[in-house]
């Protein structure tokens, strides 16, 4: 017997607004000072009323457009009602039957050529809950509630069960991360819980008669890393397969259950089941008014959006002829690095060289100096000027690296600039020698001084030319070694 793995994800993304979705409190991550970013509204005090943060709505629409979703012309707010200490009003303001967006898709690279199309069922906007803080000292002290996070805008993205492997699920989340950070709708900081995921998993087991039998669906909740998502699904697949072989239980025999993932042990564990099926008693929130969008509203938001990483990747491969590897390395660094690359590629006229410099020199220096690109002293225009001198044959690549490192070393005293590049070139005599007269004089002098090497070469020792090139280069600092080699060989034959 074999089986197919069926996976659907629910991804919760915190939007990067300054303030909460229904009040003016800060959304900054601040676990060390509980309950300081609160007000009557997000504390759910009697009499307080929510007011929609329009910026959160715009970011949510951008997110949905990035996912290729349709935007609803009319959307409303519903109360999802349940009791939990981190939920101060006893209901969460969410969206039930009329989410603001639906019917999108994300294409996931499966590594086998044909991408996997993952359909997005819907994306809706809601408020995040607070956080229950339990006593971990073992002394049985009271649990506490931190409401700093309560009211942070959250987009919930629900996929169709279109993913077929744990690796695909991980790739999907990475694509999502790349898209959302590119669009600057979320920082997707998983440690801080900005991106969280629930995975719905079951198996379709092939029967001898050709039919398929589905195992009961398990929802693994609140996974906060790509790796854990992959591990949780892998474990869940093994567990369900074993269980099915042992019990033969199918989706008809057991309701959907929820489990949590224990990263220390790499296993999923059952979560406490509610005694009866939850009835959230959704109904439209009478404290809020519905939101309507015209086509012009949606187009205005679309026009503010940057290119998605997927379409940018296609352009990098086509327009700049980058390798898939280089394009991915650049895009994985996020929008700032991709923008940096494009500026250098366009201005220097040598995209391949630009890609090499960005993926190797720039990223290496950023890593070593523990910097982000905006704090890097060599901006795109400066690197562009430097590479322009290489493509204009004014500088060798080797010299350009020397200039690059000197620019960085001296950045404290002299901000890197085009003027600095030229100053360093002059100071170090790195200018590529274009004057063939000077080169020929130098070659003639070197050949005259090195009769033995000349004789060696003429008797067939090709290697002897190296020493001659070295000496010429010593005399003419900015010379292009390839040209010198050519000319020496020409002079000797």
């Amino acid at each position, binding site marked *: 017997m074999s089986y197919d793995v069926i996976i659907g994800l629910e991804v919760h993304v915190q939007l990067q607004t300054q303030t909460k979705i229904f009040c003016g409190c800060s959304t900054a991550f601040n676990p060390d000072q509980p309950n300081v970013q609160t007000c*009557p509204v997000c*504390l*759910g*005090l*009697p*009499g*307080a*009323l*929510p*007011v*929609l943060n329009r910026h959160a709505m715009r970011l949510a629409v951008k997110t949905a457009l990035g996912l290729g979703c349709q935007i609803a012309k009319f959307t409303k707010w519903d*109360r999802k*009602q349940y*009791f939990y*200490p981190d939920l*101060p*009003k*006893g*209901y969460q303001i969410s969206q039930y039957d009329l989410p603001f967006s639906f019917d999108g898709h994300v294409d996931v690279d499966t590594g086998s050529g044909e991408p996997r199309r993952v359909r997005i069922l819907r994306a809706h906007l809601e408020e995040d809950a607070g956080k229950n803080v339990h006593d971990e000292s073992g002394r049985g002290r009271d649990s506490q*509630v931190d409401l700093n996070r309560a009211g942070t805008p959250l987009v919930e993205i629900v996929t169709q069960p279109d993913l077929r492997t744990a690796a695909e699920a991980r790739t999907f989340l990475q694509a999502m991360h790349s898209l959302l950070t590119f669009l600057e709708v979320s920082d997707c900081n998983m440690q801080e819980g900005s991106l969280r995921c629930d995975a719905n998993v079951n198996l379709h087991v092939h029967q001898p008669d050709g039919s398929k039998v589905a195992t009961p669906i398990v929802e693994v909740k609140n996974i906060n890393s790509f790796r854990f998502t992959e591990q949780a699904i892998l474990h869940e697949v093994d567990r369900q397969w074993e269980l099915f072989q042992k019990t033969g239980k199918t989706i008809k025999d057991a309701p959907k259950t929820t489990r949590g993932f224990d990263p220390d042990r790499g296993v999923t564990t059952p979560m406490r089941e509610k005694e009866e099926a939850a*009835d959230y*008693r*959704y*109904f439209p929130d*009478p*404290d*809020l*008014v519905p939101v309507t969008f015209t086509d012009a509203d949606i187009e205005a938001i679309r026009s503010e959006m940057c290119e998605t990483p997927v379409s940018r990747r296609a352009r990098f491969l086509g327009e700049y002829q980058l390798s898939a590897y280089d394009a991915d390395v650049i895009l994985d660094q996020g929008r700032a690095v991709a923008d940096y690359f494009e500026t250098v590629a366009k201005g220097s006229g040598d995209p391949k060289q630009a890609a090499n410099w960005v993926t190797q020199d720039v990223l290496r220096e950023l890593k070593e100096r523990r910097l982000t690109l905006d704090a890097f002293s060599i901006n795109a225009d400066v690197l562009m000027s430097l590479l322009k001198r290489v493509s204009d044959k004014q500088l060798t690549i080797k010299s350009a690296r020397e200039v690059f490192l000197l620019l960085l070393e001296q950045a404290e005293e002299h901000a890197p600039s085009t003027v600095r590049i030229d100053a360093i070139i002059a100071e170090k005599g790195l200018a590529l020698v274009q004057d063939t007269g000077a080169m020929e004089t130098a070659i003639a002098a070197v050949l005259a001084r090195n009769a033995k090497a000349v004789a060696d070469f003429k008797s067939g020792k090709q290697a002897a030319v190296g020493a001659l090139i070295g000496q010429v280069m010593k005399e003419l600092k900015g010379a292009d070694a390839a040209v010198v080699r050519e000319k020496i060989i020409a002079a000797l034959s």
Partner: protein
Amino acid sequence: MGLSDLSASELLDQLQSGAVSSREVTQACLAAITVQDTAVHAFLHVDAADALQQAAAIDERRVRGESLGLLAGLPVALKDVLCQQGQPATCASKMLSGFIPPYDAHVVTKLKQADAVLLGRTNMDEFAMGSSSENSAFGVTRNPWDLSRIPGGSSSGSAAAVAARMTPVSLGSDTGGSIRQPAGLCGIVGMKPTYGRISRYGLIAYASSLDQIGPFGTDVRSVATVLEAISGHDPRDSTSVNQPVPEYSKSVDQPLTGLKIGIVPEHFSAGLDTEIAAAVKSAIDVYRSLGAEVREVALPHAKYCIATYYLIACSEASSNLSRYDGIHYGHRATSFKNLNEMYAASRGEGFGAEVKRRIMLGTYALSTGYYDQYYVKALKVRRLIRQDFDAAFQQVDVIAGPVTPTAAFAIGEKANDPLAMYLSDIYTISANLAGLPAISLPCGFTTGGLPIGLQLQGRPFDEDRVLRAARMYEATTDWHTRRPNG
């Protein structure tokens, strides 16, 4: 004639001219409370020192010649459902006993900006659910006209305090008649403005789509002046409407010419007390004599209003009141074994019987499988009720009718019969469902000496016309000048 015989508008004239100080007026109110409130029990909390301090500060500013607000120096009592920073707000519930809000409701900010003196907090039916004050966790308020009778509700204390002249004006809230019904039963004027006219920010919610704050006073002019002071758009309430606020206090005395008054035949059918029917009919005759045209209008869906109201109001209430969970503030049970028990015990102990009844009704109506046949259907009927009014207001300017089917009933008479109690709101509920402005004003007395109210309902945001129509009637009658024990 003492200070407490004066209406708010008369007091404001005297305060402005310097004939009396705010301190004197406030002191007179505090004295009246001391003398009368043991019997009436209109107030839950009076901070005398704080009120006198506010009054003294306003007097000082007046002496310095500073420009002052519309209600400068006038004492105002607040229903215990409105948040005022630093003062208790209990909603007459054990659940919120000891709760002190850290912020001001929008109307409280407006009153402070108008330089009113915030006098104290008045009793009510718990969480504004009720028509008699018998649902208060802190004791019943008595009708100043007959202490054995209820004052109406849920804004019981705010109405009784004005009727007993313990405060010139007060604020209440009206979800199904909670201002107009007690105003009618206490022989004073009370108004529920259009939904969205006054910000609900800081009004502790009962049913969000129906709740509206409004003023009580002894005459229409006072109510117009307070309404002007507290109306206006507030960005903190998404349902607050950005409509200019007319100067009601200036226009209220201008009679309307060519006024068209609608009457609804069903209002005068079975269930209406004959004395009330007679009083309301003669009030309509007064309008005829003033040149108004009276014609019948049809509100065919009005008969569904009580069922519709209780489905919508209880559904919203069941949700609005879930925040009282014993976790963050308010009453928490002391004995429980786990989280669920803590919720159940805290809510079980904190809420009274009527509140529990409505939470259960609403929870049921919103449950899977019942939602469509109850809640969704109620919303549809609500729309039909509004359409009836829209059609009627094509023909008439205001609709006149009774406020209540009977005069004030005896304490305990309906306490164990919720359905009979619910019927006391039968004439007032439609205005909430349709979001319309409506006023209750005195139009007579029963042979037993109990006040009778006349209700006028108007078009959305047409408070100005409703007030002027009410004032036209009041100006030719003297019902509003009568007072208990006087």
